[in-house]
């Protein structure tokens, strides 16, 4: 018997019991759909992530932090999530050293600004301030801009905000409206950056109460919103390194011990009302110079050199993270999700397989006489066995195909919805759910295989029937 004849006869037999065939197929459809949808979601989510990383050129970036036990955790474009004073200090000398390394085409230091919170001018709502300064013209990465424009070298009191910030202040749907408004960074009262009014000089009679009042009044620093970033680090806000350096420079009044000593010696015994406070001087302390940058982000000439450069720097005792590391972390999660999806899909397909076995066993009973006739007409046992196996495989195949079609329809709908969400969340993604060809072929092949396996036992039963008995069967 020829291959095509098997298919034709199997198809003919299946269409004889339409209701039962359809019900059996529905079970397979559900099984294959759960496999397809879940796997394609996992694949698509990963693809979106990779696309986002690619859109900012993340696969050519290496993020260096001072301490080697700080890898992987805080995203790629990060100022490091620990105290920069821990581990090795990342200063300008190191920056230059990194810049001179082979394959490194650019580097930018990154610092996070010590603002406690921030609010939009005219609103009372406060949000956690995640403000990062970077060298805008270093050419390491471009913050994807959703509205307004990016930062420029030397920009002072200008900020590019992330979409989380927009959402907090109710501008999620209208990023353009927020451009030109002022964001107010609230700094701890105790700290006074080299920006805005100088700290009040402590009066002669400054006591504890005076200091307390000072620290209770948070410093407000205005920043004009020039742009909205559409990147995946939605909680991140950006300022230029130039301004960040100012903000990270602390200004305070200090005793001038030398001057005091001198004055005391000169005035010994003369003026008993002499007060220490008169010898305070204004001191500026560049905290970046003191403690180093939060991190340094390097741009590598080619993705294939990223690992090598990363390894080299790691050997020097720094913490290194790359998009690969991050992807590896995320891949682990996706692998688990994928496995879970597979298990759920697998269970439904297992149930579907039982349905196929049931249907096919019933068919062997119903068609016992027909089997007898086929045997009388010259069908070998093998022919009968194949015929039933093919029929079961065809059930699996049809279930897989229908499942694929339904999933495709659902994905189309899902893509429209996901597209809307993506726009709202300003993700640079379209066609969220995709079906790679291997998934399509794989699922259909898989359901067909399941059908085939499920058909083995019923087919074996059918084949071993004694033709004489089968012909006599009522």
């Amino acid at each position, binding site marked *: *018997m*020829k291959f095509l*004849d098997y298919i034709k*006869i199997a198809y*003919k*037999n299946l*269409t*004889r019991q339409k209701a039962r065939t359809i019900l059996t197929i529905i079970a397979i459809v559900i099984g294959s759909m759960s496999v397809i949808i879940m796997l394609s979601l996992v694949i698509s989510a990963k693809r979106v992530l990779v696309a986002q990383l690619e859109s900012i050129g993340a696969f050519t970036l290496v993020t260096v932090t001072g301490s080697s036990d700080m890898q992987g955790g805080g995203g790629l474009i990060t100022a490091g999530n620990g105290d920069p004073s821990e581990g090795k200090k990342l200063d300008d000398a190191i920056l230059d050293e990194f810049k001179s390394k082979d394959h490194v085409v650019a580097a930018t230091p990154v610092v996070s600004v010590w603002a406690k919170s921030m609010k939009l001018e005219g609103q009372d709502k406060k949000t956690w301030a995640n403000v990062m300064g970077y060298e805008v013209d270093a050419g390491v990465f471009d913050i994807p801009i959703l509205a307004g424009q990016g930062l420029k070298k030397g920009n002072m009191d200008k900020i590019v905000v992330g979409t989380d910030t927009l959402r907090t202040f109710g501008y999620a749907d209208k990023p353009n409206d927020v451009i030109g408004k002022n964001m107010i960074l609230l700094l701890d009262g105790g700290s006074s950056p080299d920006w805005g009014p100088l700290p009040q000089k402590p009066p002669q009679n400054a006591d504890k109460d005076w200091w307390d009042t000072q620290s209770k009044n948070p410093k407000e620093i205005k920043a004009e919103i020039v742009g909205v970033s559409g990147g995946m680090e939605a909680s991140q806000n950006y300022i230029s390194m130039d301004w960040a350096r100012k903000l990270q420079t602390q200004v305070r009044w200090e005793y001038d011990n030398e001057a005091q000593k001198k004055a005391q010696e000169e005035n010994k015994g003369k003026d008993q009302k002499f007060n220490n406070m008169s010898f305070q001087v204004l001191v500026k302390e560049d905290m970046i110079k003191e403690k180093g940058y939060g991190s340094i982000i390097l741009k590598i000439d080619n993705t294939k050199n990223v690992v090598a450069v990363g390894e080299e720097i790691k050997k020097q005792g720094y913490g290194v993270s790359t998009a690969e590391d991050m992807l590896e972390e995320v891949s682990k999660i996706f692998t688990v999700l994928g496995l879970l999806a597979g298990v759920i899909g697998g269970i439904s397909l297992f149930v579907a397989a039982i349905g196929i076995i049931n249907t096919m066993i019933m068919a062997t009973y119903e068609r016992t*006489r*027909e089997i*007898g*006739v*086929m*045997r*009388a*007409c*010259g*069908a*070998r*046992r*093998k*022919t009968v066995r194949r015929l039933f196996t093919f029929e079961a495989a065809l059930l699996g195949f049809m279930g897989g195909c229908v499942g694929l079609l339904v999933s495709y329809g659902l994905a189309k709908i899902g893509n429209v919805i996901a597209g809307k969400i993506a726009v709202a969340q300003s993700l640079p993604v379209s066609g969220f759910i995709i079906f790679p060809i291997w998934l399509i072929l794989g699922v259909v092949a898989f359901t067909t295989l399941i059908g085939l396996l499920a058909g083995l036992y019923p087919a074996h039963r059918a084949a071993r029937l004694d*033709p*004489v008995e089968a*012909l006599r069967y009522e």
Partner: protein
Amino acid sequence: MIELKQVTKTYKMGEEIVYALNNVTLQIKEGEFVAVMGPSGSGKSTLANIVGGLDKPDAGQIIVSGQDLSKTNDNFLSDYRNKTIGFVFQTFNLQPGFTALENVMLPLIFSKKAAGERKQKAIECLEAVGLGDRMRHKPNQLSGGQRQRVSVARALSNDPQIIIADEPTGNLDTQKGQEIIALLKKLNKERGITLIVITHDSNVAKQADRVVLIQDGRIK
């Protein structure tokens, strides 16, 4: 030439052993029309099954065209049934989902004939039984007589040497039954096909070249 030499076939019915065929020796010549008669349970059908290669004897030999069927395997017997034998059953045994044409093509599918050849052959066979105009009909659209003609056409499709008809008139009225017997007889005479008809009907038996009577598994 069909030769049964001391063929014995037993069945177990509970504890009891029943002799369906008990030491049967019989010869049927090529092109002969033999009617096999006997009461129910006498072993007529077992004889037909053994000659038709559906069953094997427990003892003795069944030799068809020089080949001892009792010494062959299932695949051989399948091919033997396919190429050498045509079966006609009392209950027609047509595949319900198939058209008349497809039913007739079934043995040709098993013999791996090319699709075109198959169809041509099946049409010829249907025309030979007078159903050239009913090829696209399914069994439930045909009368009993027409159905039996389809099964005769199916039996003919592989140009068999032997046609075994087990009560071919059993489900038909006298007139339709006679038509079928006439058709089989015509094929027997014109094509030289050996015809073995198992029947209760003495009117049918009358028309045969020879009547074999069987009782309790023995030929009388």
